[in-house]
């Protein structure tokens, strides 16, 4: 899967799951702030990425995933 294709799919599923506009999911935007994630809903994002891309986000890696660009890079390098 090309990175652009992965990003498009990621934006679509995140916007759908967390009920935000796709336009709000910009690469440099903060993940938690944009999708209003708390510690309970963070596990939803981890589960969704695992289910849709087969990539497991390790708990110790979560603090380093601040922006969507961080998330895209993390997932793409593990596809």
């Amino acid at each position, binding site marked *: 899967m090309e990175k652009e294709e992965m990003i498009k799919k990621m934006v679509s599923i995140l916007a759908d799951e967390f009920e935000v506009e796709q336009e709000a999911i910009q690469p440099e935007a903060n993940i938690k702030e944009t999708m209003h994630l708390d*510690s*309970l809903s*963070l*596990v*939803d994002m*981890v*589960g969704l990425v695992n289910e849709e891309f087969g990539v*497991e986000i390790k*708990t110790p890696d*979560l603090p380093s995933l601040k922006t969507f660009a961080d998330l895209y890079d993390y997932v793409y390098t593990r596809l």
Partner: protein
Amino acid sequence: MSIPAYKTNDITSLIPQRPPILMVDGFTCENEQNCQSTLTISSDNMFLEESGLLAEEGILEHIAQTAAAYVGHIRKLAGEDVNMGYIGDIKRCTVSGLMPAAGDTLITHLTIMSQVGNITLVSAQTAVNGQTILTCRMKLAN
């Protein structure tokens, strides 16, 4: 963490619930992402309604206890005590078909979607006589 396959009918070693609220009578952990449980509904099951059919809440409790059994199994492997868990939320719940009655056996397949800290997200599918009657995503804290 690699989890060896495990099967038990002694569910009380994995979860703190006891009769009459015990809603799992068999548990199989296939690997780190998949497990299965069963419950044959007794005539005195506390979730049976006047109609003689099991309430949806009974199936959700059965799913929650299945997830709790998975967590309990992991905790036991790590040498930790089994503790009480709590349902965090339930999403994308779909109920279809006729609810089961006494004598029917629920079979639930659980996929572990993610675990972050003490929060576990699972995807569940419950069937009776080969027909899926309930699917949902459930988040549990323990």
